[in-house]
């Protein structure tokens, strides 16, 4: 059906429409109470305590991940903030720590072991088992070949100078203690922490 509107009726309708809409705009017909609070994004998240990976201060972090660890879910970190119970940082984080989420999600982040064979220019992906086996094999061979019990003056030294060890900074005191024990027990002297590099 076509609505038949004469010119006069059209003007009248237009005027009435404008009048009512401007009345509403002027507050004669107030909208229903409208309000919203932003959705709180941490409700129900799984919280995991961790230490910041960046420097030797070792600030405490809370990693918030989606998924409660049940069999059919794969957890995914989506927010990181400071751990208020951590004695070092008490909830605060520096700009690098505060932005660690983008570091975790970074495309260029190494997420699996890779090996570059001697003479090759290609990095090849290998499994963790292969990687650990290779490292153990190399360490054993090198230690067997180069371990020194005595120096040139006949002093007892029990040292292994041909291999170094670089530890991560994201370590608790206990981890640091154990790392130190293992490395020194092997006789390695060149030992440093990533945070100092």
């Amino acid at each position, binding site marked *: 059906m076509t609505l038949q509107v004469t010119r006069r009726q059209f003007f009248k309708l237009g005027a009435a429409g404008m009048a009512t809409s401007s009345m509403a705009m002027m507050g004669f017909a107030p*909208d229903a109470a409208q309000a*919203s609070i932003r959705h709180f994004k941490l409700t129900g998240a799984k919280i995991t305590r961790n230490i910041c990976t960046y420097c030797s201060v070792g600030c405490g972090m809370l990693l918030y991940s989606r998924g409660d660890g049940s069999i059919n879910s794969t957890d995914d970190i989506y927010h990181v903030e400071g751990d*208020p119970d951590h004695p070092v940082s008490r909830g*605060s984080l520096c700009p690098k720590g505060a932005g660690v989420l983008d570091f975790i999600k970074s495309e260029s982040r190494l997420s699996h072991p890779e090996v570059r064979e001697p003479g090759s220019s290609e990095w090849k992906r290998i499994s963790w088992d292969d990687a650990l086996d290779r490292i153990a094999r190399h360490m054993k061979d090198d230690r067997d070949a180069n371990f020194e019990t005595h120096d040139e003056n006949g002093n007892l030294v029990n040292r292994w100078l041909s291999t170094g060890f670089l530890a991560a900074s994201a370590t608790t005191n206990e981890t640091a203690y154990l790392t130190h024990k293992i490395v020194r027990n092997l006789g390695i002297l060149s030992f440093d922490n990533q945070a100092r590099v």
Partner: protein
Amino acid sequence: MRGDQINLQNIIARSASMAPSPQERSGGVEKVAKLIDVSKCIGCKACQVACSEWNDLRDDVGECYGVYTNPMDLSPNTFQLMRFNEYEDEQGNLEWLIRKDNCMHCAEPGCLKACPAPGAIVQYANGIVDFNEEHCIGCGYCVAGCPFNIPRISKKDAKAYKCTLCSDRVYHGLEPACAKTCPTGAIMFGTKEDMLEQGAMRTDYLKDRGYKNAGIYDPAGVGGTHVIYVLQHADKPEIYNNLPSDPRISPLTEAWKGVTKPLMSAVIGLSALAGFFHYAIKGPKEEPEDDPDPEKADADRALDEKSPTQALQDADEEGRE
């Protein structure tokens, strides 16, 4: 939950609406405040990072203009910004004044006053002024209404954005992300009362250290703010990247939304009433009898009575003849 109703007693003002919120309770909700102690800030920008992390904002990588301020200005993706300022005092000593620039959450917000979209800007009982982009019409009046030049209109969705003082976190009993992360304690968060006390303590300390004009920046012109500064030179806030010394809502906004709006509403209402009574008493307007050209008037009237399609058909026929 966005767009849902929360406890409406938490809302004490909303833009472009005279509908009052229920307000029966008295007490229980303390006014909150963020205290920014400029003298403690080392300019690390952890607050900027924590802000963009919490609010899921990632601004474009900008360019270096030879200063540490980065990005150069607030944007819909940058709710807060550390503004670096090199200031030389009368003795020629260089001072590096770093001001955290973000929404001040005024007790009398100019943005809310200027906003024509009902419910697009709300003020919570704890003092936080929040934008609800769901209802924003992108007109930009809040930008004009703000004495601190804070809101930014997005080019992507044409809505206004600004710092929320992490209203979601505060509502759930946490502190804002910037305040939590600050490694030097330059940003603190608590009730306004506690923050003023803390600010007074810091002011005394700074005065002891030789900053004679140290003080708290809590401008009365906008009814006080829920983001307050401790400044080493509270007598000249303009040296902190043009922090206004006496911020007020622009008189234009005040006049337009304060006096003019109800006045004009009354005028419109009155003219509508007058129109009604005029019609009731005098009846509809009629064509005068002594029309200067009665024949033409008759023809026009006849044309008016016809429906538009019929008029077109007639015109067609006339053309053919």
